[in-house]
C-alpha cells in the first residue's frame, strides 16, 4: 500500500487529525470561558441577593432604620458625607497618620529584623525582649499612648508603629533565616563575607516572606490608627465614625466604613502589584 492510499482512508489523514485537535482545543477554551463567566455571575448574584435582603428587611420594618439604614440611605449618606465641608480635612489627618505609622513601622521592622538576623550579639541582647513584647495585644497600649503623646497625630502614629512593627520584624527575620544551607556553603566556598552573603543571597532570598510582612504591616497600621482615633482624638475618620455613631447617624458610619475599606483595599492591591514586580521569579 502506498502513502497516498493510506492517507486517503477516512479518519486517518493528518488533516482530519489536526482538525480534531483544533476542535478539541477550541472546545476546552470555550468551557474555561463559560466557567469563568458562570463564577462571576454567581458572585455578583450573591452580592445582589444580600443587598436585596438588606433592602427588604429595612423597608418592611423588620429592623429599625435608625439601627440599620437601608442600602439606599447608605448610598445617599455616602454622597452627603463626601461633600461635607468637614470630610476632607479629617481624611487628610487619618491618611497622614496611616502613612507615617506604616512607613516607620515597616522600616524599623526591617532594620531590627536585619540586625537580629545578621549579628549574634544583637540577637542575644534584644531578641528575648522583642519576643516578650510581642505577647500582649498591642491595642492595650492605645490609652497609654494617648496619655503620653496627646490627642493629636503622634499618639495615633505611635500605635500604628507598634502594631505594624512586629509582622515586619518577624517576617524579615524569618525570611533571612530560611535559606538553603548549601547556598550558604556555596557563598562561603567563594570566600564571600557577611555583607556579600547578605547582598547576593540572604536579602533576595528573603523578599517573598518580607513582602507578605508588608501586607500585614499595612493592614495593622490602618487598624492601629483607627483604634487610636476611637480612644481619643479631635480629628480623623475614626473620630468621625465615633461621633456619628454617638449621634445615631448609622448611615454616615456605614458610608465611612465603606470608604475606608475601599481605600485600604486599593493600597493593598497596589502592594500586591508591587510584589509581583519585585518577585518576578519562580521559586525552585
Amino acid at each position: 500500500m502506498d502513502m497516498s492510499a493510506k492517507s486517503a482512508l477516512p479518519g486517518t489523514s493528518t488533516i482530519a487529525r489536526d482538525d480534531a485537535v483544533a476542535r478539541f482545543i477550541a472546545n476546552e477554551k470555550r468551557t474555561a470561558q463559560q466557567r469563568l463567566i458562570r463564577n462571576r455571575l454567581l458572585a455578583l448574584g450573591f452580592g445582589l441577593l444580600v443587598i436585596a435582603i438588606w433592602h427588604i428587611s429595612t423597608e418592611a420594618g423588620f429592623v429599625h432604620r435608625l439601627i440599620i439604614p437601608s442600602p439606599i440611605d447608605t448610598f445617599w449618606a455616602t454622597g452627603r458625607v463626601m461633600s461635607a465641608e468637614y470630610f476632607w480635612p479629617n481624611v487628610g489627618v487619618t491618611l497622614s497618620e496611616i502613612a507615617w505609622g506604616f512607613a516607620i513601622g515597616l522600616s524599623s521592622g526591617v532594620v531590627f529584623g536585619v540586625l537580629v538576623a545578621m549579628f549574634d550579639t544583637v540577637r542575644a541582647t534584644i531578641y528575648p525582649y522583642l519576643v516578650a513584647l510581642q505577647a500582649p495585644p498591642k491595642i492595650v497600649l492605645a490609652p497609654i499612648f494617648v496619655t503620653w503623646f496627646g490627642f493629636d497625630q503622634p499618639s495615633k502614629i505611635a500605635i500604628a508603629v507598634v502594631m505594624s512593627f512586629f509582622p515586619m520584624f518577624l517576617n524579615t527575620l524569618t525570611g533571612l533565616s530560611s535559606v538553603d544551607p548549601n547556598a550558604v556553603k556555596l557563598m562561603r566556598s567563594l570566600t564571600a563575607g557577611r555583607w556579600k552573603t547578605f547582598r547576593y543571597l540572604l536579602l533576595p532570598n528573603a523578599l517573598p516572606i518580607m513582602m507578605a510582612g508588608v501586607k500585614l504591616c499595612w493592614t495593622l497600621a490602618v487598624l492601629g490608627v483607627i483604634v487610636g482615633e476611637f480612644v481619643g482624638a479631635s480629628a480623623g475618620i475614626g473620630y468621625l465614625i465615633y461621633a456619628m455613631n454617638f449621634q445615631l447617624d448609622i448611615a454616615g458610619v456605614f458610608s465611612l466604613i465603606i470608604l475606608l475599606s475601599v481605600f485600604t483595599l486599593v493600597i493593598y492591591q497596589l502592594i500586591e502589584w508591587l510584589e509581583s514586580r519585585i518577585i518576578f521569579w519562580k521559586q525552585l
Partner: protein
Amino acid sequence: MGLIEGANLDKVYSTATGPLVALTNVSFTINEGEFISLVGPSGCGKSTLLSILGGLEQKTDGDLILAGQHHDAPRRDIGMMFQTSVLFPWRTIRQNVRLPGEILGLDKKQQADRTDELLDLVGLNGFGERFPGELSGGMRQRVALARLLAHDPRVLLMDEPFGALDEFTRETMNVELLRIWEKTGKTVVFVTHNIGEAVFLSDRIFVMTPRPGRLEGIVEVDLPRPRTTEVMRDPRYTEHVYDIRRMLGVDH
C-alpha cells in the same frame, strides 16, 4: 609531593550524647589533575572529609596541606558543587554562572566571554537569559557545573552532584563531566555512594567505612581513557565494582 596531602586526619563533633567521631586517622595524597572519588555508605564521613578539603570545616587533629601550605579556610582556587544545583532563582542562567566572578571581583569583560564559553561547554548555548525555574533538574546541574568552573579553580570538590538525578540523566552527566575534566585537567574530588559511577569516573577511589569514618582502602582504577559507557562491559569494570563491594562488606 601531591597537590593535597592529608596525614592522620581526625574529626570529632561534640554532641549532647557525647563526642561523635566522624573521621579517624585518614591519610592520603591527591596528585594534580587526578580524578578521585570518595565512596561509602552514609555516616562514613565522606561529606565531612569534602567539607574539610573545602576549608568549610576544621579538622580536629592531623595535617592537611594544599599546594605546600597548611589549609584550613575557603580558598578561591577551590570550587564546590552540591547535590542540589543551588542556583539563585532571581538570577538568569548567565547571571548565575557569573556569580563567582562578581563575588571575587574578577574582570567583567573576561567573565562575560568566559560565561559564553562555559555555557557552550555544558551544552546550554541559548539558555543564558532563562531563569532556573524554567529548567529541568539535569539542566540545572549543567548550570551548576558551568558556575563551578567560572572562576577557574584548580580543585573541584563535588558532593554527590548527580545524586538527585534519574539514572539516565546521571549517566549522560557522567560522560559530560569526563569530557570536561579531560579538557580542563582539573583535580577532582567526587563524593558518591554509587560504586559504578565512581569506577566509571575515577583514577583512584577512596573507599570509606562508617562508625567511625575511616579510609578502608584505595582502589586504583585500571581502565583506559578516554572512557565511554563501553567500559561498563569491560571485565575489569565489574572486577573493580566487586572489589569495592567486598571492601564495604555489602556482599550478602
